[in-house]
Structures are given as C-alpha cells and as structure tokens.
C-alpha cells in the first residue's frame, strides 16, 4: 500500500516537473528515454542472464524508421535528404502529428519483427559469445546505415522540425516530455506485470540454468525471443522519439551509438542493480546526473571519466545500488536472516 502511494507521488512529481524546472525539459526527457533503455536492457541482462550490447540496433532502427515514415508519407525521401530537408519541404501541423503517430507505430512494430528474425539466430549463443556477437551486430548496423544513400549515408538526415504556427519551442519540449514520460510509465507497468507472470519466472529459470529449464519442458527459445521482442518494442519507440527530439540523425553518433548509449544501458542497469525492477530506474537517474556533471565540468575529458566510471562500477560495485541496499537491509526485501546459523553458513560458503 505504501509503495503504491509513493509511486503515485512520483508520477505526479513527474507530471509537474516540466513546470518546476522549465530549463531542463530536454534533459529530463532524455532521462526518461535512458530509463526505458535501462529497464529493457534488464529484461535480457538482469532477468534472462543474456548480456547484450545489441539492443542499440533497435534504437537506431526505430530512429531511422520513424523519421523516414514521417517524411516519406508526404514528401520524396531521397530529395529530402539530398536537399538538406526542412528548407524545401515544410510539414504543416496536421501532417506532422499524423506522421509522428504513424512513425512511432512503425518504429515499434518493425524492430519487433527484426528481433524475432535475428533473435532466432543469435539467442542460441551463450555467455560471452552472445555479448561479442551482439556488439558486432550493433557496430555493423551503424556502418551499414552509413553506406545507404537514401537516408543520408554518413552525413545523416534531419528529422522533420516542429511545425510553425502552433506554439513555440516551449510547447515542443513539453509535448515530447510527456510522450517520453508516458512511454517510461508504460514500460515500467508492463514489465512489472510481465515479471509477475509465468513469463518472468521462465526468464529467471533461463538465467539460473538454461539446460535445466529446457529439461523441465520449457521451450526456452520461444521465451528468449519474446523477451527480446518486448525490449525491441520499447527501445524502438524510444529511438523514434530520440530522433525527433534531437532533430538530426547521424548513423554512428546518434542512431547506433554503441560507444555511448549502447554501453550506457548496460552501465545504468548494473549501477542500479541488475535483476531488479527498481534498480535500472535508480541507476539510470543516477547515471544521468553523473553524466551531465561530467559533460559540463570535464568537457574534453568526458569519455576518460566515463571509461573510469565503467571500470569502477563493474570491478568494485557489480551488485549495484539495489544489491548494496539488499545486503544492508535484508528485512526490507522480505529476506529473513537467521542470526543463529549465519556464522556457520558464511564459513560454508
């Protein structure tokens, strides 16, 4: 009951946040996107035990698909990218919102099918082979996108600008903030529900021992693919939104940024505590604050600081914030500590 009250309080805080801190609307929107990325990474990395670097493929795919749909519905896509886009062709407000709506649907659906297709191939790999394979996939996707002419090749493309005539940039910020916020809440509620069903139990069984889960008669491949489909769905929408918020899509730096977002999502989930529902959210928010600090105060050295942060978190703090809290206050997590037998158990392990 108490957690429900806290949840509603936080939701209300999130709803009024753009009016409390109007200067940070874009930053907070990106924070919710990061939360979505961390939550969906945790479906693989935390719950299923498949450490993926490949979710970034869906991110970039969603970004390109959303922008291409928004433009391609009304104007020739090739001419848009060749002409530098927004100068020659202008979306009116009706076209813009129709395009955005349809674009986000496409950005959600297509990555799901891609996840089925590639998931059948590479989810049969395990452990570090899976990790390296997905890392290769992410970078290959970026390099390929950089070679396709119609979406602007290496130069990238612009996504449609906010239509003139309705509101100013403030309204644009609020609009995207609320979409990102709703996406975050939806993915959180969906995953909370999914983890409470048999699906979540099967994912945990796969993490703990996949061979035994298979021997129990579970078609593990089916569940692994559906897990990845869930991630692809939300990450695709997040990518589409991100492309619209930044306004400019470049293949390696914004669409398939394996070196930034691809690692961020892993780091955020680990920082918060992987395998928990709340952990990735806490991790993403904490990481975003860290990151903005780095980018503001250590400009030019931000990746040095980031690399050092990765090493420190991974090597010294692999349990994350939730893991630390669990160690400190086990009663809060519904674990009973048997003080009498504790010592002997510690000696055994």
């Amino acid at each position, binding site marked *: 009951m108490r957690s429900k009250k806290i949840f509603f309080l936080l939701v209300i805080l999130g709803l009024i946040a753009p009016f409390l801190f109007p200067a940070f609307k874009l930053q907070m929107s990106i924070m919710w996107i990061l939360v979505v990325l961390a939550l969906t990474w945790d479906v693989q990395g935390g719950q299923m035990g498949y*450490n993926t670097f490949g979710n970034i493929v869906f991110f970039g795919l969603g970004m390109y698909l959303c922008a291409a749909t928004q433009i391609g519905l009304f104007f020739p896509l090739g001419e848009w990218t060749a002409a530098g886009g927004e100068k020659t062709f202008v979306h009116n407000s009706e076209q813009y919102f129709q395009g955005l709506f349809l674009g986000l649907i496409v950005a959600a659906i297509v990555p799901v099918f891609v996840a089925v297709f590639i998931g059948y*191939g*590479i989810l*049969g*790999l*395990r*452990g*570090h*082979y899976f*990790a*390296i*394979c997905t*890392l*290769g*996939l992410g*970078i*290959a996707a970026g*390099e*390929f996108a*950089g*070679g396709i002419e119609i979406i602007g090749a*290496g130069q990238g493309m612009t996504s449609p600008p906010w239509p003139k005539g309705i509101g100013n940039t403030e309204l644009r910020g609020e609009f995207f903030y609320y979409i990102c916020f709703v996406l975050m809440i939806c993915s959180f509620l969906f995953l909370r529900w999914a983890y409470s069903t048999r699906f979540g139990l099967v994912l945990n069984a796969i993490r703990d021992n996949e061979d035994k889960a298979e021997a129990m008669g579970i078609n593990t491949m089916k569940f692994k693919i559906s897990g990845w489909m869930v991630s692809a769905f939300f990450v695709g929408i997040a990518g589409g939104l991100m492309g619209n918020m930044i306004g400019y899509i470049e293949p390696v730096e914004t669409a398939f940024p394996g*070196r930034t977002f691809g*690692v961020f999502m*892993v*780091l955020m989930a*680990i920082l918060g505590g992987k395998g928990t529902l709340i952990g990735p959210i806490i991790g993403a928010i904490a990481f975003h604050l860290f990151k903005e600090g780095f980018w503001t105060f250590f400009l*030019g*050295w*931000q*990746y*040095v600081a*980031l*690399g*050092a*942060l*990765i*090493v420190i978190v*991974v*090597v*010294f703090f*692999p349990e994350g914030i939730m893991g630390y809290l669990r160690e400190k206050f086990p009663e809060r997590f519904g674990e009973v500590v048997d003080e009498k037998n504790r010592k002997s158990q510690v000696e055994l392990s």
Partner: protein
Amino acid sequence: MDLLIFQNPILIVQASLDGILLGILFALIAYGMALQWGVMNIINIAQGELVILGGYIAYFLYISGVHPAFGIIVSPVIMYFLGVGMYKAVIYRVVDRDMFISILATFGISILAQQLMNSVFGSDVVVAQSNFGTTFLFNYMVTLPNAKIFSACISLIFAVILVGYMRYSKLGRAIRATAQNARAAKILGVDTDKVYAATFGINAAICGVAGALIAITFTLHPYVGLPYTVRSFMIVIVAGLGNLPGVALSGMGLGVFEEFSDYLFGTEFRIASVFLLLVLILVFRRFKLSRKREYLK
C-alpha cells in the same frame, strides 16, 4: 555488387597476396588474444586500443626523426610495462570472475584509451612513411608495397620467437602450466599472479609490434581499435584456443576475405563486412552445434 574482380584474374592475385600479407599481421594480434584468453580466461576488448597505442609509439619515433621501423623494437618494450601496469591496476581483479565482467571492464578501458589518444595525438588520420619502395610482379600487373612484405616478415619472425619462447623457456612452461590448470600450477609452486602479469605484458608487447607495423603499412586513428579486437576474436573462435596453425590460416583467410569484400562491395562496407562475418560465423556454428543439442563454450 561489383564483379570486376572475377573478370580480371590478375586482380584476384593482387587481392589474395594483399590479403595474405595483411592476414599474417591479424594472426599475430589474434595470437596475443588467444594467449590471454587461454591463460587468464578474459576477453580483452581493449586489444585494438593497445595495437593503436603501439602504432602511435612508432609514429612518435617517426615525427621525432627516427625511422619508424625501429618502432618494432621500442614499442613492445614500452607496451610490455604498460601491460603489466594495466594488469596491476585493473585486470587482476577481473581474472577469476565472470567473463562478462572482463568484457565490460576492458570496454571501459578502451573508451578511456580512445579519448586519451585523441587528446594526446589528435584526431587526424596519420601514417608513418617508411620509404621502403614498391615491388612489382607479373610484368607490373601486381604491385606490392615493400612495407607490407616487411611487416609480414617481421610478424612471422616475432611469431616464431614467441612460440619458441613459450615452448622452451621457464616462464613459457609456467604460462602453459597455468593455462592447463591454474590451481595445480599454484600447488606446484608457480606464482600464478606473476604469470598472469607476464602474460598480459606479453600480449601488450605483441600488440605493440603489430601496432608499429600497422603504423608503417596502414593508417592510424584513435577510434579504429575495435575492428582489430573483433578480427582477433573472430580468428580465435574460428581456429580454437591453442591451435597455432589454425590461427595463422584463419588470419590469412580473414585478410583475403577483407580484400575481396573491398573489391565486391566497396571500401565503405569493409568494417561492416568484418562485423557481419563475425555474426555469421557465430550463428553458423550455433546452428551446427544445436543439431547435437550443444552450444559454443
């Protein structure tokens, strides 16, 4: 798709020779990867950054007036101590833990190293001119820069020295014993911590040599490390750990594949084709093994 190469047989010779010379260099880097993977059970994503760093040492010699070929002596010495330092600072904490921890930790090191190299050496593409000239074969139809032949020869010499060292020296024996069974080696009086440090140092030294050779044959840039890591990973999983002829052969095979894909798909898809080949190899092996209900270990 450009099928020009299949219409001109001489281009096939050119691509194959280029690929083999390049592949020997890849095999050298992959040997270092296999060494640390087999002995310490870690996958080092920063392998490519070590290579590029070794290359920048040679480049530094070049801009201070020394011939860059001396880099193949200077660079491994510096890189050996750097590798040992890296081991003492970070790597020893991840050796006996989950492999994903080592992947992520070295990924962090690689991001850090990229930006450090970027701020120290600048973000331009650089090359150290060796002025070795060019060899022409088949009536001037095939051109081979002497620098490439030189780099392949040096790689071979280094590989032979390394294999001999591993086989006959005391440290080499200790490294092989640790790779077979670290616990038993420890019981029999091998200081495994020192062995691990030396292994990582030797790997860094190999990367130093390879980097110096890359500096004189190809180009250097702070952000091109990751493809070298992936290439060496691919060579190791195709050949298997501890299979030296396999490493050499699959290295050359990869080199030839890259040269052919250059002609077929164009150079802009070169990196993409390397990464895609990795995915295809892994998926192919996964389907082959899953018939016997096994998986890659």
